[in-house]
């Protein structure tokens, strides 16, 4: 079953030796979804070294430890190399599947037959699950599902843990997947549970260099985090915070700005946000009776007028009121900003102190520093263009957002940027490339945000067809995850939750999943406690899993298919959309490709090609071609035609030529690796040039909430109203509401820089590195707290939840931890014999997490990732 790379044919070997090959080949990393550009040194057919590609903006020649270690995954002798068929019908942990080697034809015949059957019955019975780490597989998976007719697709833990709030809100407020400081010009950056620039996340290696340069230049960096982690260790100031309370800190800082210092950017708020929109006593916009457009108070004219009066053919608006109280359409109303200002007055530093454990004086100082450094009203000239200059940024990601209160946590933090006008201007908080005017020769790819309903911004580019705004209003769910009820969410815990069947019954879901295609994802470990996930998987009659190694999930599969690793794969778009993974700020646009670095090994196949072949066998080639035309935005004459069968390489070739013309085809990109062209200030600092507004007052959230509750409550799904208020507040996680004093610590996991979730745990070099690290495989604990409990560095403990879930690990006592926090890195603790390097290493934090609607955001479905625990000393494992 195990066939290593050394078993390649003697003919291939001799050919390489005869050629005396010694080449550096450009490609793209995929040890995390940062997807930095790489150069691989190939000598006589063997990859001997991987480095960053200095010709590319994506990484700028840098590569992290994970990137250089990819070679160990490529040549790992434990890879799956041939299709495997389960012979033991019984499934479960510790049950031998009785794997039997089969041919690809046997595997595809069986899979296609299953797929044809469920498609004839109800295509929604197909459930596709994929890893978020490999960006290559996104479009083909979407296309296959759209063509097949199922909406039941997810990225398991990747989306449920970090994607829901951060991405949709970044889309609504910045037209981008994520946010980052403008490293080149920012003077004061506050990180709330984010690691941008510290060896993890989007545009990883580029941001590392940019962040380092910014610190050298003098940018003050404040990191708010329970743990003095990789970002905090390099910061000017670490602010330890109680897990899951970031919104309270951000709101208190906003209160200091607005109500204590009187700092806000009035022209920005009036022209680029909905701050002047009039809000009635029902918390909704007051609308013009004739046009139904939201009204603003024109202080110059002394009357209420539509926000877009000029576009409606009326005279231009005068000065718009941000404060005061007025009468319009027969009701008393106030501008949204006035409502926000009053709302913030309740969120003082003294209110936030007992929630966050951060002294009120510190909160006040942070607010003052942020306001002072914002330099509201200032401008700067970049490349001959005068632009607003706001050198402050508040950014957030999973650490702050990964909670039940995900939406308000993220929104409260981003409000700091919008209050001072530091959104997508020089020095401020940037989306990753929300505006692109395209390559000079073809003007492609090109996109610009535009105004949608009520004048609010619609992103010009997005990762999936489901746009952040305008979103669909709640409908009775027909998908496994109930996504129709939660238009502000993406991944749903109901795909693998304890209350899955109960919810489906209550909402009369007319089908159940019968076939699951899993692509490189190990949801048994990446979502939450494995018991719950395994129970949901055992109910699916037929599971196919594309894998590099036999994981805990593939042990439950019926067929395991040998996937190629990223160093064996082809991809025309590893870094597109640019809003996902190209560094923000000035510099170059850069389009890179991924290409195979070695000859095909054993029976491994790239799953993209396999899905195209399955589409043909199922009879949906025309459908998948149309879906790819839409997803890749292919233009004539490079569209995929009718039911013609294309190889994945042909799709990639069409895609590249569609964007960059016939000269820049796949062969050109394979030779050159990247195509670059310079960014313009109007693209990077686009906010003054694009007529769109963003919501500082989320009026539609109330409307969404009212409609969702009307559908959900009669069927026993409680959606608390306080999560749907137009203005953000801090709301507790389930862990904060635990009243049992024995459970006195907050467990959480953090993104390790040595490992990427569960993906890299089998990598021998990274495992060796992690064993040398004091935290990677340990439970990080505040030294003083440990001492009080009589614990010593290296002691073995059980970490237990109120629900009785527990994991065992060794404590590492450190001063770099909040007194109530227990931090665990990544997704370790594997037990399958298919991953012998990873087996038995580290702590499986997710085992402590409940997976149900009570532990998910009632607005965007993000799973709550902090859990109240107690420690008990135990014997060595």
């Amino acid at each position, binding site marked *: 079953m195990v066939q290593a790379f050394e078993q390649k044919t003697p003919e291939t070997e001799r050919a390489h030796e005869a050629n005396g090959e010694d080449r550096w080949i450009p490609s793209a990393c995929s040890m995390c979804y940062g997807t930095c550009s790489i150069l691989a040194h190939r000598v006589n057919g063997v990859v001997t070294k991987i480095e960053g590609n200095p010709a590319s903006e994506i990484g700028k020649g840098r590569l992290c430890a994970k990137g250089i270690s990819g070679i160990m995954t490529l040549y790992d002798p434990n890879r799956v190399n041939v299709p495997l068929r389960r012979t033991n019908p019984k499934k479960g942990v510790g049950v031998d599947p009785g794997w039997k080697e089969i041919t690809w034809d046997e595997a595809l015949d069986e899979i296609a037959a299953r797929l044809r059957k469920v498609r004839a019955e109800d295509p929604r019975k197909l459930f596709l699950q994929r890893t978020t780490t490999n960006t290559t597989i*996104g479009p083909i998976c979407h296309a296959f599902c759209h063509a097949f*007719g199922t909406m039941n697709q997810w990225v398991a833990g990747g989306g449920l843990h970090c994607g829901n709030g951060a991405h949709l809100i970044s889309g609504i407020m910045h037209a981008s997947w994520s946010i980052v400081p403008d490293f080149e010009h920012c003077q004061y950056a506050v990180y709330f549970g984010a690691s941008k620039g510290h060896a993890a996340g989007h545009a990883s290696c580029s941001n590392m260099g940019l962040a380092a340069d910014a610190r050298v230049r003098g940018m003050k960096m404040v990191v708010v985090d329970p743990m003095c982690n990789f970002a905090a260790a390099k910061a000017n100031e670490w602010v330890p915070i109680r897990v899951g309370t970031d919104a309270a800190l951000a709101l208190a800082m906003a209160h200091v700005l607005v109500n204590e210092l009187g700092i806000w950017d009035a022209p920005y708020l009036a022209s680029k946000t909905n701050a002047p929109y009039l809000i009635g006593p029902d918390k909704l916009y007051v609308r013009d009776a004739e046009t139904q457009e939201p009204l603003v108070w024109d202080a110059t004219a002394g009357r209420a007028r539509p926000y877009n009066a000029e576009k409606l053919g009326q005279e231009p608006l005068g000065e718009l009121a941000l404060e005061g109280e007025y009468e319009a359409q027969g009701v008393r109303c106030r501008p949204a900003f006035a409502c926000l200002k009053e709302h913030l007055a309740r969120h003082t530093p003294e209110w936030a102190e007992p929630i966050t454990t951060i002294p009120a004086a510190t909160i006040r100082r942070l607010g003052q520093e942020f306001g002072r450094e914002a330099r509201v009203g200032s401008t700067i000239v970049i490349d001959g263009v005068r632009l607003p200059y706001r050198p402050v940024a508040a950014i957030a990601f999973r650490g702050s957002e990964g909670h039940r209160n995900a939406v308000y946590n993220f929104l409260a933090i981003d409000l700091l940027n919008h209050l001072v006008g530091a959104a997508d201007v020089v020095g401020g908080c940037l989306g990753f490339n929300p505006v692109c005017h395209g390559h000079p020769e073809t*003007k*492609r790819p*090109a*996109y610009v945000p535009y105004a949608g309903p009520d004048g609010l911004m619609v992103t010009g580019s997005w990762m999936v067809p489901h746009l952040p705004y305008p979103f*669909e209003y709640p409908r009775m769910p027909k998908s496994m995850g109930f996504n129709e009820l939660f238009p502000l969410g993406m991944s749903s815990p109901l795909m693998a939750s304890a209350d899955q069947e109960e919810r489906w019954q209550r909402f009369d879901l007319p089908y159940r999943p019968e076939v699951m295609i899993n692509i490189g994802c190990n949801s048994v470990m990446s979502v939450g406690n494995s018991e719950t996930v395994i129970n949901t998987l055992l109910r699916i009659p037929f599971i196919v899993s594309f894998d590099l190694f036999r994981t805990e999930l593939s042990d439950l599969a019926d067929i395991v298919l040998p996937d190629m690793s990223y160093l064996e794969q082809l991809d025309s778009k590893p870094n597109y959309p640019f809003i996902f993974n190209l560094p923000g700020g000035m510099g170059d646009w850069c389009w890179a490709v991924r290409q195979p670095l070695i000859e095909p090994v054993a029976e491994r196949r790239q799953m993209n090609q396999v899905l195209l072949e399955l589409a043909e066998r199922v009879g949906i080639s025309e459908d998948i071609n149309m879906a790819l035309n839409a997803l890749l935005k292919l233009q004539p004459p490079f569209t995929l035609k009718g039911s013609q069968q294309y190889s994945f390489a042909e799709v990639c070739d069409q895609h590249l030529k569609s964007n960059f013309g016939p000269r820049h085809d796949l062969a050109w990109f394979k030779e050159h690796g990247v195509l670059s062209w310079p960014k313009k200030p109007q693209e990077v600092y686009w906010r003054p040039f694009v007529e769109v507004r963003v919501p500082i007052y989320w009026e539609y959230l109330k409307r969404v909430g009212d409609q969702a509750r009307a559908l959900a409550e009669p069927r026993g799904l409680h959606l608390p109203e306080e999560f749907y208020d137009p203005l953000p507040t801090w709301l507790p996680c389930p862990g904060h509401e635990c009243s049992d004093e024995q459970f006195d610590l907050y467990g959480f996991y953090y993104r390790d820089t040595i490992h990427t979730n569960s993906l890299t745990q089998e990598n021998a070099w990274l495992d060796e590195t992690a064993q040398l690290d004091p935290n990677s495989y340990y439970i990080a604990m505040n030294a003083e707290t440990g001492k009080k409990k009589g614990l010593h560095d290296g002691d073995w403990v059980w970490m237990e939840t109120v629900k009785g879930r527990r994991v065992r690990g060794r404590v590492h006592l450190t001063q770099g931890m909040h007194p109530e926090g227990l931090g665990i890195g990544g997704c370790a603790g594997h037990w399958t014999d298919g991953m012998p390097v990873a087996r038995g290493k580290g702590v499986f934090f997710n085992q402590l997490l409940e997976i149900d609607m009570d532990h998910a955001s009632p607005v965007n479905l993000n799973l709550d990732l902090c859990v109240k625990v107690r420690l008990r000393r135990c014997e060595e494992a």
Partner: protein
Amino acid sequence: MKLFGILGLQMGERSVALQLAEGARLRDLFEVLGEHFGAKFGEAIFRQPGVLQTYVRIFLDDVPVDDLDTPLTASLPPHLDVGTISHDGEGTHAADRASAKPRGEEQARVGLMVMSAVEGG
């Protein structure tokens, strides 16, 4: 007219041949389809009357189009001018179609697909 993916299965027909009046636009086609399939057609693709769900894609001669006012009689030029920048910069729009040469006797091939999906990471 072809209904791709789940739409064809939901409507019970994958292909429909229709004769529309001279100068008909996509909007007119959908009105006729609404009468043909009944209310379930509108529920599947419209967020409100006349406004498509953001995840519905229309294809004219295999090319995605965004604008319901695109005339069905327009045809793609042999090689579309890819320099057009519109709100998303990458779709094909009514203006492009209007300037294209008439298709003559050739039938317009229209496709429709629902592409709702989720993402994360």
